[in-house]
């Protein structure tokens, strides 16, 4: 049986990769995927703890996260399409018209 620590380590690595992706990458799509990566890292942690402690609610919460992620992707992709139509570009550093 693979100990919990491994799962958590993978989850942490995944989360860190996602976070770094959000912070470093400029392509909106890639940032989006990084966000998904972080969500899934969280999911992995949920599932791991649920199995470890035999708590069903952790499993359940994963469904919520996946639902929210799906909704988020739907809205986010629509935004990206709309932005692309205006700017012909999806570089987040170009989207700075609200700069103070």
């Amino acid at each position: 049986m693979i100990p919990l620590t491994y799962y958590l380590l993978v989850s942490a690595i995944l989360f860190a990769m996602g976070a770094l992706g959000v912070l470093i990458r400029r392509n909106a799509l890639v940032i989006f995927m990084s966000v998904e990566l972080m969500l899934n890292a969280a999911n992995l942690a949920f599932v791991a703890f649920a199995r470890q402690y035999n708590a069903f609610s952790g499993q359940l919460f994963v469904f919520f996260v996946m639902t929210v992620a799906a909704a988020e992707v739907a809205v986010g992709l629509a935004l990206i399409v709309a932005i692309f139509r205006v700017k012909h570009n999806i570089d987040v550093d170009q989207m700075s018209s609200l700069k103070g």
Partner: protein
Amino acid sequence: MLLSETATSPLFSLVPLIVFLPVLGLLLNILFGGRMGEKAIGWLTSAAAGLTFVVSALLAYALWAAHGETVVVPFADWITIGSLHIPWNFRVDTLSVTMMLVVSGVGTLIHIYAIGYMHEDVRFKNDPKRFRRFFVFLNLFIAMMMILVSGDSYLMLFVGWEGVGLCSFLLIGFWYEMDTLGRPSWANSNAAKKAMITNRIGDFGFLLAAMTMFWAFGSVQFGEVFGKAEEIAAAQPGIIIAITLFMLIGVTGKSAQIPLYVWLPDAMAGPTPVSALIHAATMVTAGVYLVARSWPLYTLAPDAQYIVAMVGAVTALFAATIAVGQYDIKKVLAYSTISQLGFMVAAVGMGAFVAGMFHLVTHAFFKALLFLSAGSVILGLERGHHHLAHHGGHTDHHEEVFDPGDMRNMGGLRKRMPVTFWLYIIGTLALAGIFPFAGFWSKDEILLDAAKLHPEVFILLTIAAFFTAFYMGRQIWMVFFGEPRHEAAAHAEESPKVMTVPLMVLAGLSVLGGALNLPGVHTLGHWLEHTIELAEHELHLPAWLAISWGGLNPVVALVSTLLALLAIYISWLIYGRKPLQAGQPDPLKKALGPLFTGMENKWFVDEAYWAVFVDRYVDIARFLADVVDWRFWHDWFHDKVIAGTYNWLSHIALNRYADQKGIDAFFNGLGDLTKRLSTSLRRLQNGFVRSYALAVMLGVVVIVGYLLMK
């Protein structure tokens, strides 16, 4: 209307009617006069005056029946302030009833005369609508005069005193927009203002007297003042002298004595009936009445009495000399009135109250007669003038202004106006004091009393009497004898009956008026004795003065009559023997030289007053207006001090410091702070989504770290 306890006769309760009948007359005239004809207006007002006379006569009868006992009829409360209580009471005593009879009797005759006079006057002056106004004023005058003579206190008397002054003002300025010749000018209204202002000076004296009286006696009611007079005189004799001398100032104003007489000659600007009624017969005698009414005060102050007598005597002589040099028929009579008022004031001043009142009554008859006859003469000339203008055809010739009152335009009128001529002769003889006309008896009584009491007053008055006869003689010769000096005089026409009949009544009174107080009988003297107690003087008289034919001294009477006849003879020598020709200067001018110039120019008193008082007053007024008010108050105090301080305060203190440095600085600082804060904070809003994400992550790390470390 309540009866006082002493009143036995119900007739006394009629006394308020003497005021309210004329008031009713004038109210009816104001309300319905517009729809009534001239005749109706005239007779309505004359009836009001006539009924007043009837009431006065009834009062006289009731008083006679009550043996002259003074009756006070309470009528209404007027002033009640604390302890001061001044009711409107009517005082019916022999003195007030005498005045009532004179005022309403002569007044009624003048009302009737005025119907005829004003009928023509308003047409010559092209304003027939003003007819009604004249009669409203006349009735108002009668009402006010009645308040004056019937008042039971000095304050009530003062109400009438001011009321008649107002009527005098209104009637002098009756033709306010023209001069006496009908030319557009403010001359008439200036004359009215002069009368008003001069009388105000006199009224000031009257008020001082009344206030001193209230201060000393605690009352202004006749009864209370006279009751306490002796007590106060013993304690503070100065008070009585002060009151009587203050009162003298009032008398000099109203009764036209030196130094305030100057308004009366100018008052001739009023229509002639006004001159007769107000400025000869009644109003101007109010001062004489006041002194007679205040007899208990004057008899207690012999020094004041002497001053009053001298003022009267000097005025009598002074005005008589001016009358000699006048050319206007009414001006001569005006100065004559001043002079005769001087006789009366001298008489009442000496304590000869009966003689003064007697002369007041007879003078009212013959001076009203003379004035009204003069009015008839003036209208006669106006008629002649108009006759010429309409029928003569030489209109160009009459472009020059014609003065119908100038005696130099007259002459030979005895043939054109015989009735007026004879009336005038009667008035003149009465005024000159020729036996047996009314003036002889009254003037003789004054002269006799003066001879006994104050020889210097006697001498002044005797000379004045000489001048009186002279200027009246001069007037008669100039107006009625010789040849007409102007075409208007040649075409003069006699006046209608409505004017001459009242004159005949007055002429009758001028002839028979002496019967009121004949020597030996002394009807008026005994009548007034009920009110005025005459002091008995212990006098050591020279033999010629001690002779008494029932109160008549043949020496004094003979001297005054001979002097009058002599004066008339001299006037005949100068003006009658060789009548004045048109354009010829007065023959006296050559004989008297500068003396006549002085008489002609009223001794330059008006000019002197103008230079000493009026110009100085104007200077002071100008100084006050220009320097004090404008430059000091407006330019300096208002503009510099008040506005300057205010501007400095608002501009420097409030604007610059409080507003700009305080309030503005606070809110600007608030804005600046916000701005600076936002300038530094806006750097965070760099628009890079990733930097926001980093911030979020760092935040999470911090929070989570905090939660873990806790």
